[in-house]
């Protein structure tokens, strides 16, 4: 277990390094950032001044390492637009996005897991059909389209729920549901497939042959094994859910990290963009690492594979 853990930690650390390089390099991919900052009216002298001010005239590697050492100390530089430390902005905006993501994920799991179990236990039944239809629809419906349809029915035509902001629990219903429906299909399908697979296995047949009640077999033995891949999937989904909130936050005018990312991109506020891409990636890496550790702890076979 210690070897497995060390290995996974090492790979994750490498990943963080690689991802940090990419998020840093993104800014330089389009050429000279100083010229961009100076704008179309700026002269070459303006650009040179800005380059000196922000240190763009130094070699790229040296800029990267000074940025990285700042990041390791929690200093992402200053936002060009707000003229405030990016870390402050992150602390201000991230909790809302994390809250939205966590609530959406919880909702998705609460619906998808029981539905997936029911579907996998009785393939071809009504529950199965409902599960598969929901999965198909959820997979095909872009979250922002769904969000608008909700908004039209629930806020415009009937004033049941507020259309924008994120102040009370009533504000959270539509964005969370839209995101949850986006996350559900994969979980339903995986849960269903795993359940079918597990229920066919020898140890379940043995448990049944020994006279255990069907319910006990499903809940105690089958579920534990069928849930394992779902843990990995849920972690990965949570990561993409956070990034997917960019669109949903813009639809519902929620002032979270997704909205911050979008306006920063529009404003060309690259220290903020770099920080946000890095932080969203970090979330994904940490979440998948956690899932791997949980799975390694649950199942010795995973540890052996490394």
């Amino acid at each position: 277990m210690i070897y497995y853990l060390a290995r996974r930690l090492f790979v994750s650390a490498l990943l963080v390094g690689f991802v940090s390089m990419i998020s840093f390099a993104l800014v330089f991919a389009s050429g000279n950032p100083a010229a961009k900052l100076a704008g179309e009216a700026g002269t070459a002298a303006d650009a040179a001044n800005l380059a000196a001010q922000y240190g763009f005239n130094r070699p790229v590697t040296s800029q990267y390492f000074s940025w990285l050492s700042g990041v390791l100390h929690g200093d992402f530089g200053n936002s060009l637009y707000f003229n405030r430390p990016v870390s402050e902005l992150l602390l201000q905006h991230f909790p809302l996005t994390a809250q939205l993501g966590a609530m959406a994920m919880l909702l998705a799991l609460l619906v998808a897991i029981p539905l997936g179990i029911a579907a996998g236990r009785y393939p071809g039944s009504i529950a199965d059909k409902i599960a598969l239809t929901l999965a198909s629809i959820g997979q095909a419906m872009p979250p922002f389209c769904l969000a608008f349809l909700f908004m039209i029915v629930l806020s415009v035509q009937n004033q049941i729920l507020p259309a924008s902001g994120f102040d009370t629990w009533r504000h959270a219903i539509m964005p969370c549901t839209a995101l949850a429906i986006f996350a559900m299909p994969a979980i339903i399908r995986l849960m269903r497939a795993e359940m079918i697979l597990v229920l066919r296995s020898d140890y379940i047949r043995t448990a049944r042959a020994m006279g255990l009640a069907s319910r006990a077999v499903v809940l105690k033995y089958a579920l534990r094994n069928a849930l394992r891949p779902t843990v990995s999937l849920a972690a990965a989904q949570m990561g993409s859910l956070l990034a997917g909130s960019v669109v949903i936050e813009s639809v519902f005018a929620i002032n979270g990290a997704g909205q911050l990312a979008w306006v920063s991109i529009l404003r060309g506020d690259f220290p903020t963009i770099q920080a946000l891409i890095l932080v969203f990636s970090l979330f994904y890496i940490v979440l998948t690492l956690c899932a791997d550790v949980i799975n390694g702890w649950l199942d010795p076979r995973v540890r052996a594979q490394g």
Partner: protein
Amino acid sequence: MSATMTGATPTGKFGQLRRVLGRNTFLIVLAVLILAAIIGPWLLNADPYTQNLLTRLQEPVWTEDGTWKHVFGTDQLGRDVLARMLYGIRISALIGVSVALMGGVIGTTLGVLAGYFGGVTDRIISFLITARLSLPIILVALAVVSMFGASLLIVVMVLGLLQWERYALVSRTMAASLRNAEFVTASRIQGCSHWQIMWHDILPNLFTNLVIIGTIDAAMAITLEASLSFLGLGVPPPMPSLGLMISEGKENILFQPSLVVIPSVMLFLLVLCVNRCGEYLRASQAKE
């Protein structure tokens, strides 16, 4: 598939027709949509760019104020919504196909190399796949498009360069399992080069699976393009992209919700059909 399972099996000549239609519902709908997008604009004789402020914000035909002249109504600049929607399907289809092909080439190359050679090659490529998975695709795409300027070509390039991980994962697993298959060993004994083996022995065996992933990827690309265009960093206006139509329609969501609903439903239908066709392919492959 589900349509044949629900009712009692229809018999007779008519029943047979119904069965075939039922099995291929989504394929037929998709074909009709694409066909409408290709020839529709000529038949309609409506231009998606012509503005007419006198006839702006007209309701669709099924409402009281609607006319047959503009079946789906007109938008805030008086442009015909139906014509824009048909052109929007063209753009979505173009993006879906080109991104799926581009991602397919990149992902399959990486995946086959990793699976076939294993060892260090596999480690490096697997690392690349994981790194790609951890990057938030929509944020990176937004950032890159904002730097290079929004255009159709840039959107296709960015999404194609970002979306290849599914091909890589599947072709890696399959190539690894085929590496020591008997027919591969036979080729190797005959003195075939690695390149020949990968090209002639391994790749043909991956083909069906790659096509299935292609449908998922095309659907993803269509959704992503719509999201990017919705956020103003995808296909630039006045091009008629479905995402852009939704974004422009949201200004008038209070007065004319159909401007948002029509492109949303079309996007849903398009992605649904592409997904279902992929699933049908998968099911028919599983039967073999």
